[in-house]
Structure formats: C-alpha cells, structure tokens
C-alpha cells in the first residue's frame, strides 16, 4: 500500500455559520447529538489506515483540542502514528490573509519532514464517508497528478452555495474550479478533498504563496488545471456541507431518515468520537417521542418529534420540541414549545413559552443563554 499522510484542513474564512461559529470552529460543531463534524474526516483516514494526521486548528482551538486528544479515540496507534494539531501563528488582523496556504507555509518544515509519499487533504466542514486508501489507489492507477473528490447534486441552485464546483470534461478531467453561485441545479460539487504526491503539494503551496497572499489551495489547483493532469472522482452516499446555518440544521435533520443514517454509519466503517461517559437516557411516564435521534444522558418528560437531541438534555413536563436540533446540556422548561430551532449548548429555555420558526428558516438560541 502507498504511504499516505492526512491533512484535515480548517474551514476557509469565507465560510461562516452565524451564531454557532462564535463559540467554536465548524470542525467542532456537534452532529446528530453524539458526533462532531471533524470525526468524519479523521475516522475516514483512520479506517483507511492513515495513521499520521495533521489537523489544522482555526480560532478558538480549546474544544477541538480536547475532543481530539491523543488520537486514541480514533483508533490511531499513538506510537506508530500521530494525530498532530497545528496552530495558526498569530492570526492576522485581516482574516482574508488566513488562508489554508498560509497555515501550510507556517508548518512547511513539518510537512517536508513527513516520510510518506502521498497526502490526502480533507475538509472539516463536510460530512461523508470515503475509503481514502481506495481513492489513492485509484489516483495512482489513473496516473493523474491531482485527484479531486466530487459529489453530483441536483439542488445546487439553493444549496452548496459557498462550495466550489468542478467543471469536468468527458474523461473526468478537471477544466476548472468555480464558486457555486446557484446558476444551475445539477452540479458536481467539489468536496474539498485532494489526493496528490507530497512533493507536488509542497510545490503548489509555495507557488500559491508567490502568486498572491490571498490564494487558497483551490485557487492554485484551479490555476494549474491547464498544466497538470487533474481528475475528478465521483463520491456516492450521504454528503453534506455545513457552509451556513441552514445547511447545518438541514444536515442534522436529514438523518432522521433512519435508512439514510444506516447508509452513513456502516458497521464496517466506524465513525469514532470521544466518549463523555454519560449514562443512558430516561424516558419518563408521560413522555412521547417520535421519529427522533436521542443521545445519552437525557431526561425526557415532554413531547419530542422529528428532532435531534444532544447529550444530557432535559425536556421537562409539558414541553414540546419539534423539528429542532437541541445541543448538549440544554434545558427546555415545563410547557415550553420549541419548533424549528437550533438550541445551543447549556442554553435554558424556561420563561419564553413559545419559540417557533418554520424549518425553512430555522431559529437559533445562543450558547448558555437563559430565555
């Protein structure tokens, strides 16, 4: 097998999730209660026998640092391998300079010292499963310089609006990358996932730096499309990109389709996550729960429908929670009626008796808020 190391990139500064992102990077966002988004790229790598993984940390790294730990959680042998956290060096005042390229430049010495030949670069704001070992095999046998993973969607007019799209020729050659501005329904969304040789990666990073301080890896790859053999490989299965608040909300609720969830979480492809040692959930007499995903440590006395409930949530008597995403340790007080909301961690909704939004334009209740 080819020797591969992994890079989990920090999300680009132009991707903004209002509210949620004030408290943690997208990588550390809770996903269907039990997971964090970064669990997906890291588990994909770990399951692909990639045991040296660099995670580029954005701002507010504390929660992500604690979540990642030494990598044991993700079944990475801490002696043979390493889950290494790399920090931006004093983030620039103007955040347009905080590109992925500048993060790689700052850690170039470490990247150069890697002894693996290939690198897989994956995003920390997208949710999908993919065997990267297979992808690298495909990359090698195709003879391409760079392989990009993409997903064909039919809702690019209203979704994936901050993502890149790949323009492909008949041979799956990449003609160019461009921002999706919602012009067409059917698009090949670039999954921000690259395979290439380590040496080419270093060369591109250095070129990008020379080109412009604002150049990203996607920019330099797009600019190299004429000179290099860049190919797209189609991904199948569940795919979500958290590029704004609505897409975060939708990605969670989409998995209430239990068949879809079973497709994403397959027995032979474990998604690892850090345990919090919470106890099972108690459903009290009088509770009613329908079509919902519920994490451990909850106390449920009220009504829950079509919702995702995080760890240690309390839903008191008479409360109604519908079409909502409730994050860990939140408390929904007696007779409170919540619909179409994301309730952030530690928030308490006690006095506000009705907070209702259309799931098409969901609402947000801030972390540790008391309402």
């Amino acid at each position, binding site marked *: 097998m080819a020797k591969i190391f992994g890079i989990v990139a920090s999300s680009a500064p132009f991707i903004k999730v209002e509210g949620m992102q004030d408290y943690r990077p997208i990588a550390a966002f809770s996903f269907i209660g039990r997971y964090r988004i970064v669990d997906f790229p890291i588990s994909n790598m770990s399951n692909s026998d990639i045991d040296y993984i660099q995670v580029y940390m954005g701002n507010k790294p504390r929660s992500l640092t604690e979540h990642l730990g030494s990598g044991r959680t993700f079944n990475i042998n801490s002696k043979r391998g390493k889950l290494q956290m790399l920090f931006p060096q004093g983030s620039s005042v103007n955040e347009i300079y905080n590109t992925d390229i500048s993060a790689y430049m700052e850690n170039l010495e470490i990247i150069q010292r890697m002894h693996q030949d290939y690198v897989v670069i994956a995003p920390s704001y997208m949710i999908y499963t993919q065997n990267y070992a297979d992808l690298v095999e495909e990359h090698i046998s195709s003879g391409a310089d760079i392989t990009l993973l993409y997903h064909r969607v039919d809702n690019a007019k209203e979704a994936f609006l901050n993502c890149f799209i790949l323009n492909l020729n008949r041979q799956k050659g990449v003609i160019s990358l461009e921002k999706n501005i919602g012009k067409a329904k059917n698009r090949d969304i670039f999954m921000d996932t690259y395979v290439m040789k380590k040496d080419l990666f270093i060369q591109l990073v250095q070129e990008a730096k020379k080109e412009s301080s604002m150049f990203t890896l996607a920019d330099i790859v797009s600019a190299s499309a004429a000179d290099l053999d860049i190919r797209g490989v189609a991904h199948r299965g569940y795919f979500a990109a958290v590029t704004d608040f609505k897409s975060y909300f939708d990605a969670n609720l989409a998995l209430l389709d239990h068949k879809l969830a079973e497709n994403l979480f397959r027995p032979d492809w474990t998604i690892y996550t850090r345990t919090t040692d919470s106890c099972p959930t108690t459903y009290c007499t009088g509770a009613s729960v329908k079509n919902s995903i519920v*994490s*451990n440590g909850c106390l449920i006395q009220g009504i829950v429908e079509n919702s995702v409930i995080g760890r240690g949530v309390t839903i008191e008597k008479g409360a109604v929670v519908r079409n909502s995403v409730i994050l860990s340790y939140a408390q929904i007080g007696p007779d409170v009626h919540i619909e179409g909301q994301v309730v952030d961690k530690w928030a308490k909704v006690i006095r506000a008796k009705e907070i209702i939004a259309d799931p098409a334009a969901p609402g947000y209740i801030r972390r540790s808020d008391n309402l």
Partner: protein
Amino acid sequence: MSQNMLAMILAGGRGSRLKDLTNKVAKPAVSFGGKYRIVDFPLSNCANSGIDVVGVLTQYESVLLNSYVAAGRRWGLDSKDSGVFVLPPREKADERLNVYRGTADAISQNIDFIDSYEPEYLLILSGDHIYKMDYDAMLTYHKERGANLTVAVIPVPMKEASRFGIMNTDEEGNIVEFEEKPAQPKSNLASMGIYIFTWKDLRRALVADMRASDSSHDFGKDIIPAFLADGKKLVAYKFQGYWKDVGTIDSLWEANMDLLDDRGELNMNDTSWKIYTDDASALPQYIGPDTQVDHAYITQGAVVLGDVRHSVLSTGVVVEEGAKVIDSVLLPGVRVEAGAKVTRALVAENITIGKGAVVGDAGSENITLVAKRVKGVE
C-alpha cells in the same frame, strides 16, 4: 512506584445462580444498566477515589473479563503509574499451577505483586455489587480510627439480617464479633465485603493462614476471626446509599429496574461520580415515528420502532414494529422482532425473539431468563 492504597477485586466465582448468563462470561462481566458491566462499578469507584492500581483476581472463564478490564483506559486507569492488572492463578518456579482456594488465598498468591507497589493499605472489593462509594473517605476513616481493618457495613432490615454476614459493634463502632448468616442476628449491620487492611497486618495474617492446614483461606471465615482473636482493632464504616448484590437473576433484574427511578438513590447522571464503561461505537438511539415509549431507560445504539414500557434497553437492541417490551431488561444486541411480546423477562446478549413470539409472564413471581433464541410464530 509506591502506592498508598492498592485495590484488589475478587472477581473469581462462577456465579452459577446467574445460570446461563455466565456460561460464557464471568459474573463481573455481565451487562448491566444498558451500557455497563457489573465490574464497572468497583473500577469506577476506584478511579474516582484516586486509586491508581487495581488487581483483578480471576479464575473462571475470564477471557472476556480479562480483556475487558485490562483496557484500563476505560476508567482512566492507564496513566503513567496506573493500571488494571488481571491476576489469574499461575504456575510458579517451585509449584504447579494453582487454583485459588479461597478469597484470602487469592490475595496470598499475589503477595509479590502487592509488595512490588509497597502499599500502606490494601482495599479488598468484590466484583458483583452495584453501588457508588468513595473509598478515599473510608481510608480517611481507617486512618483516623487507627484501625488494622475497616469493614464497610450497611444497615439492612433486621428481619433480613440473617441472610448476611453481620458485624456486631460496640458504641464506638469497633467490631467485637462477626457472625456469618446468624439465625439470631444481634445487629443489622451487614458486611458489604469491602475491607481496608493495613497491609503489613494483613500480610502477616496471610502468611500464617497459608500454612494453616485447617483454614479455608477465606476472609470471612478465617482472616477476620483471626484478627478478632489477635485483639486487632477492627472498625465498621457505615455506608449510606444504594447498594445491591446482583447475584441472582431476580436481583439483577431489580437493580436494572431501579434505574428507571431516574436521578434516584443511585444517580447515574451525577457528573461528579461517573461510572465509566466501554464506549460502544454506536449511533445515538433512534425512536421511530410510530412508537410508544413509556418509562424506559435506553442507551445509544438502540432502535425502537415498537412499544416499550417500564424497561431497560441496552446498546444495539432493536425493537421492531408492533413489538411490545414490558417490565423487561434487554441486554446488548437483543432483537425483538415484529409483533413479538416480552414481559417480565431478562433477555441475554444477542438473543433474538422471533416474529410474534411471546415470552415472559406478567403474573409470575420470578423473572424469566431468556438465554436462547426464541422462534417466531408464523
């Protein structure tokens, strides 16, 4: 690295009163409370009490128990000087492979292991009780009282006292007499089988006991009486709180049912004293669109599409459409197929109750143990 207090868990017995549940696993490894195993309780208590090194004395069919407890990371017992060590009987240079002849003999055979940590105190625990206890507080009491041996006791109803080992104490809490299952109990203080010994005192007693040909090498029958006879200072440490021996199917079922009383006496949700366990890589629990879940204790990885009433559902349990689970405990991996009905039963790991089958009996005095696949009814 010397340790102030070492813990030794007596995990040996077959646990035959648990019948078919212990065919393949030792009693301490039996599943409990949805996501736990019984031995998680003493091990988590050790971790939370600041104990770094725990020996687990095993004998019977211990491969699952061994591999389970050896991964000390589950209880944080894997840092530099910590560890959970499985101690089976072993062959020595001068003798053949031994079995443990009694609870005290299990410790005697591991004196070299204990000595290597130079402990001042030794904590003896058993592996089949459900409770939360701060052993560090008990150690403080042991030191304050200047005891040679401190025995944890719990008050039991006087009429049940004759089922226990009873400690008779004086006004200051000194143990003056120990009676195993007395017909006429003089006190209601039952021994919890939790001992803190000052190690040098116990060591001396064990060396003597090993040589005694008439000894049954048992803490209750031999060591405690010898301590009493020698005029050693034995004190009782009164424990308040939830404590349950889960040695029978009925008591195991009951202890599971006690969890439905959320935030009750055994508050599993108390974050200051968590019970740690293996973390299954499982989805959160999923409750389907057309179900009734009425008073239940359910853990991650469970999928509920049917109705559940007053029951405990473990990791990976599936209750299919139209199935009913009432007053029951489903251990990990149980599948209740469509239309089946389970009442007042404890269903063993990975058992499938076939379509439309009916098991258990709402009117029976005892809990039905289901340890074999139940065929569906066409």
